[in-house]
């Protein structure tokens, strides 16, 4: 499996290099769907130049990154493009091996449960085979590389880095903790996240006295109620999904991407890269058609309404934000659909595929 991965990486690097040098780069780097105040590369450059002048980067409310970014990019700012490409490639490789490990774990667990006769007799078609799981890591790496490279690589720091640094870090630690408890071998994904947690857990550095970035980041009381949504779901999900930490992580990342204060395309692409891992749930998804249509329509309407609002002056902000709301509703329904499909598959695995009620008639599974 190394050869296809290498091919994917080579192609991704080439496409990124080509895009960096094209006229698209400047254009995409100013689109509002791609760049937000949290993830704008221009702001990082501005903050670093302020630092060079001896001014705190956080004065002026332009720079919203953590001190870690300052330390990292202070020396790497000339090689920004290379750093982005390498980080994206590393993320893809890490995800590839992590998903491969995860697949092995899943398969082992499945075999164990089969031998222990925990599954109902007629669920043969729900059991996952190594054959169908063979290409999943490659697909995940592919999906991670390409949408990212079209959007995020040109305009902001690779999403994997700020997502773990800037976004609330606490909701991601329960799944990581649960995962480490369960498996003796450390999966790469877990390691990756753990490292990030350790590093960012430190308070702001000692050199720059007044660095309090998190306070600048939208802990304003008004946005608190929406922001709290990110934390609401952690504990109930942790309780429900305690045996499936990777799925929990996937749902948690999606929830973060939805309720984040400045969501961008990169965040959406991050959790969508994981869809191949849950491919086997496709048959249980109920509304995939409507939801795909909603998401595609909203994505296409973003630039149209932005144009009508800002440039043509015909529409106003209501139109644009209505579309962002609809997009979020679509995302929420998609995630809850996946959740439902996952739970349903678990139920079928233990209770059999063809359900009968007590009096022998057919039964239906209804979510209450």
């Amino acid at each position, binding site marked *: 499996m190394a050869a296809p991965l290498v091919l994917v990486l080579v192609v991704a690097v080439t496409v990124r290099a080509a895009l960096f040098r094209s006229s*698209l780069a400047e254009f995409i780097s100013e689109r509002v769907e791609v760049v937000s105040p949290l993830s704008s590369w221009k702001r990082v450059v501005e903050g670093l130049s302020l630092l060079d002048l001896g001014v705190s980067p956080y004065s002026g409310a332009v720079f919203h990154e953590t001190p870690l970014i300052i330390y990292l990019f202070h020396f790497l700012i000339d090689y920004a493009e290379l750093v982005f490409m390498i980080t994206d490639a590393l993320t893809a490789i890490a995800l590839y091996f992590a998903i491969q490990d995860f697949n092995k774990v899943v398969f082992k667990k499945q075999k164990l449960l089969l031998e222990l006769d925990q599954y109902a007799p007629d669920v043969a078609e729900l059991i996952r085979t190594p054959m169908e799981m063979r290409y999943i890591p490659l697909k995940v790496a592919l999906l991670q590389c390409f949408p990212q490279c079209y959007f995020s690589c040109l305009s902001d720091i690779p999403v994997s880095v700020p997502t773990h640094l800037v976004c609330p870090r606490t909701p991601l630690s329960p799944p990581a903790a649960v995962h480490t408890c369960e498996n003796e071998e450390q999966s790469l994904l877990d390691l990756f996240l753990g490292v990030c947690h350790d590093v960012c857990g430190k308070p702001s550095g000692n050199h720059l006295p007044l660095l309090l970035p998190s306070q600048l980041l939208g802990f304003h009381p008004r946005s608190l109620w929406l922001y709290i949504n990110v934390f609401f779901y952690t504990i109930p999900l942790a309780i429900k999904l305690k045996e499936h930490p990777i799925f929990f992580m996937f749902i948690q990342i999606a929830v973060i991407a939805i309720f984040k204060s400045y969501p961008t395309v990169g965040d959406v692409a991050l959790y969508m890269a994981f869809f191949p891992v849950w491919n086997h749930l496709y048959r249980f998804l109920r509304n995939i058609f409507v939801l795909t249509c909603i998401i595609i329509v909203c994505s296409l309407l973003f630039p149209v309404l932005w144009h009508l609002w800002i440039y043509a002056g015909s529409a106003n902000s209501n139109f644009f934000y209505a579309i962002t709301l609809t997009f979020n509703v679509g995302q929420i329904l998609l995630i809850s659909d996946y959740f439902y499909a996952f739970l349903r598959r678990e139920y079928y695995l233990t209770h059999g595929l063809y359900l009968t009620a007590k009096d022998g008639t057919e039964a239906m599974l209804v979510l209450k």
Partner: protein
Amino acid sequence: MGLLSDPVRRRALARLVLRLNAPLCVLSYVAGIAWFLALVFPPLTQRTYMSENAMGSTMVEEQFAGGDRARAFARDFAAHRKKSGALPVAWLERTMRSVGLEVYTQSFSRKLPFPDETHERYMVSGTNVYGILRAPRAASTESLVLTVPCGSDSTNSQAVGLLLALAAHFRGQIYWAKDIVFLVTEHDLLGTEAWLEAYHDVNVTGMQSSPLQGRAGAIQAAVALELSSDVVTSLDVAVEGLNGQLPNLDLLNLFQTFCQKGGLLCTLQGKLQPEDWTSLDGPLQGLQTLLLMVLRQASGRPHGSHGLFLRYRVEALTLRGINSFRQYKYDLVAVGKALEGMFRKLNHLLERLHQSFFLYLLPGLSRFVSIGLYMPAVGFLLLVLGLKALELWMQLHEAGMGLEEPGGAPGPSVPLPPSQGVGLASLVAPLLISQAMGLALYVLPVLGQHVATQHFPVAEAEAVVLTLLAIYAAGLALPHNTHRVVSTQAPDRGWMALKLVALIYLALQLGCIALTNFSLGFLLATTMVPTAALAKPHGPRLECNGAILARCNLHLQVQAILLPQPPKYLGLQSFVLVARLECSGVISAHCKLRLLGSSASPASASGVAGITSMRHHTWLILYF
């Protein structure tokens, strides 16, 4: 828990959609057309009203009395123009300076894309003359524009005369808070575009022009005047701008208010508006007006110089004086007073016009239909495509639905994802090919123009047309090959999946077009929706899917032509929406945008061939 999760209701809905699909589609289509036709009747059409408070009351007293002066200027202008054969620039400069304005000129030239019969590239060149009246009470932050487009013939002399007389009158007043620019352009739309581009420091049409020496501040509103006779019987107003953009309705209301105040007859499309909307005559005439407006808006051509101002977010109107056989005639003083009143009211504005509607339809001068009321017409038409797509999806997943409600006989055990995945993979090829065809249609004719004339003995215009025809003819091979590619896996499902994707794509495109230019979207939808919904393969030929895709392509091509390019001055990025959609294909869920040329704010622009006058020929070409 609602429709999305309750299996009983879902099954009922699915049965409903599958069984009643054809009647529902027909009903929806008829509802869309009927809604559009019903737009002229009173509940849907409302009287216009002034929304902007700053322009609410007409408490200005017009004092313009320079009718004689205007006529004198007009005669002088006409004489000088006849003598010089072109715009009498020196005379204009002298006169404007004598009136008290700051006068500047701008020369421009444009090579027309197709040479004339003698195989020479026709270069249109001219000079614009404009005078700035500086506001005595403010810094030059905002301005208004009064423009008279002068073609190569001898029309609009009275308009120039009135412009100069008004300038003289305005110069003597102390209440101006915005600068006023009096602009006389040569070669109609070409000159206006050259001036606007230079003013806003962009270059979207490839025009060569000298930079402007004097500027007056951000333009808030503009009025284009066309008068060719000493007396008029009515003032006609034109609103449709480039790419179907319309000025803010308040500007129209303003014009109407001052016409009514001065007792001046005002008309729309040359016709007086019906008074009585309760009986049937009024709405029928309104329907005629509405249809004509829809046709004009859909064509994307600006119906006056004002149309070019709109894409720079300057609200503008064109006023034309009509001299018909009516009894009562008005002289230049009446027109001048109306203009004076309008400018004084515009002077009161504290911010750009934003209160009233930007998107509307006019069944009559004093009636309008707002976007919230006319959009459902397009919505119903697109619903047909949605219903058809839903039906196709359900038919494709009938096997899957059997599994979802386990209880009946065990459903077929063929797992869905692999076959659906395989189906999707084989769909990508036809989609990419049609995208590529759309891109070729957009790019190749212009690119290949020069190459073709070098290698083949054709004229350039013929080269363009022949390239287009060649690409379309090549595209006719698409259905044949689609059939081969798509039906290898499962003959039935292949075309259904392709049609599903094509329908969704078409619905998306039509929706986006309808948002930016409603009339174009509506007209395209009325023709494309029935054909797309009804297209179905008969026998092994499967031509129809290719036809849908080719239609999607034509559609995409049309949209690519008619899309905006913005001016630079707002410092924002420009994009051509669909052009990029054509070549990006179905890659990601987000729309890709393509920078075209200058960075500027995309208000509206087009690759469309607009029209402007030329000396030797009666046809006009303007590439944006």
